[in-house]
């Protein structure tokens, strides 16, 4: 829309770009700013955003597996309660021997996210102490949230599956017959005996 409504967002983007030359920031829409940069700078950008720009709330922290390009994309979403602006910070890290800076000293709750990422994606956080098992117990396969982990294959290998019907037929006529009832009209359409 108009530039006036995006003034505060633009200000934050400019401020970020001025402080960190390697950072590219853009305003996506009202109340949404996005920045991307390389991984070494992440802790300092987060500290800057938290202490100087008022982004006190870590909304969410995530990772996306881009297996084709051989990297993980780390996403940090921050929220500024006074200005009501959301700042998304992104960075790419290499997929093999993935390591990332530990930020649970900046936000206590990052602990939980990092425990999950370590378990689900196998990303290591040097200097991070947190209990090892989070959601899984005695897991000895590859981290399950990586794209190359095939959950169906694993499930077939590990768990029993009840043999189902081969066809996709409606079974209502069978049930009706078993109970000695008349087959309802709508079920006749799908009947096997046609």
């Amino acid at each position, binding site marked *: 829309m108009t530039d006036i409504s995006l003034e505060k967002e633009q200000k934050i983007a400019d401020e970020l770009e001025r402080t960190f030359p390697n950072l590219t920031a853009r305003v996506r829409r009202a*109340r949404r700013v996005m920045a991307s940069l390389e991984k070494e700078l992440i802790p300092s950008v987060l500290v800057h955003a938290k202490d100087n720009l008022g982004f*006190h*709330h*870590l*909304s*969410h922290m*995530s990772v*996306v*597996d881009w297996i084709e390009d051989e990297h993980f994309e780390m*996403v940090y*979403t921050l929220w500024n*309660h006074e200005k*009501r602006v*959301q700042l*998304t910070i992104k960075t790419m890290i290499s997929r093999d021997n993935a390591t990332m800076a530990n930020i649970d000293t900046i*936000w*206590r*709750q990052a*602990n*939980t996210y990092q425990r999950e990422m370590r378990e689900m994606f196998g990303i290591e956080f040097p200097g991070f102490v947190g*209990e090892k*098992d*989070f*959601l*899984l*117990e005695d897991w000895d396969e590859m981290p*399950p*949230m990586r*794209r190359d*982990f095939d*959950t*169906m294959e694993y499930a077939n290998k590990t768990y029993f599956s009840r043999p189902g019907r081969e066809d996709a037929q409606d079974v209502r006529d069978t049930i009706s017959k078993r109970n000695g009832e008349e087959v309802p009209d709508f079920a006749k359409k799908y009947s096997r005996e046609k």
Partner: protein
Amino acid sequence: MREKATTLYLGPQHPGITGNMMVKLKVEGDTIQSASTHVGYLHRGFEKLMERRNWLQSFTILCRICVPEPDPNEENFARAVESIEGREVPERAKWIRAMVLELARIGTYLLWFAGQSGSAGLYTMGQWSIGDRDYILDLFEELTGGRIYHMYIWPGGVRRDLPKGFKDKVLQTMDYLEKRLVQYDKLMFDNTIFQKRAKGIGWIDPAKAIEWGVVGAPLRAAGIASDVRKDDPYEIYDKLDFELGHATTSDVWGRSQVRRFEIEQSINMVRQIMDKMPEGEYYNRIPNPMKWEVPPGEAYVKTESARGEFGFYVVSDGSNKPRRVHVKGPAYVHAVTLLEDLLKGANISDVSFIMNSLGTCPPEIER
């Protein structure tokens, strides 16, 4: 003389724990020295399963992420997909969505009344409020066909229009609930024993609340007027007139006050919505779901659920399946790090009391 610390496992099989999780306590006498939460008893791997299902199939499993309040999940995902795709939603659908969300909020608060009072030993309250919650579930059943899981809010709108005479039923139910609130007050909120139990327990430092990731009613009880419905309005919440809950103290009692106030506000909002809802289309048709491809893009959307900010991070790579869906429920922060902090130095009697006041919901931690 120092007593010997014993280890006490609360859960996973324990009636005081909300849902299926475990809190491991180091206890000296009745005082907790340290606590650690153990989750994962409900992990189903939703985020992995959604990588294998196409966009519409994902909807059917999404609502199962948080059981007491499934609607914010659906709404979030629908809004994320719409935001990536740039799909327009008809005006009426937005109003219907807001109505569903508010009804769900009322239902969740009623369930929470039961949990909060039940963990303090006031079982009568739970019997009443869960019985009354069934009236909300009846409305949902008529509207969507399901009591708990609705699968009602789709990208592009909602699945069905309101049935005939639904408006009157909603208004009747709201009138009934408003009358019942007076009795709830007498039984629970004005009860001196409940107040004695709740005051001073589970205190969250207001100066640290934002930094610790507190959201929702606990944050408002800490004196910070923050609500996604006000801060970052979605659907039609900017057209509704409502106030946020407020409290004098940042403890369990304050959180109870906030929720008690907000259930009244929600009842009023449902009335406003029924009053102002426009006529028109309720659904923008989506393409053939099997071939439906969402253009590349990403979105982080959030809703104010009954427990706080509920976020969905959705990434599409242009195929017919989501690339990544990451769900961040409020309990993800509340019930792990925050709970561990709050339980330090607390009494064992108050563990489930504090857990309930934070709105702990294990399935959304683990997904």
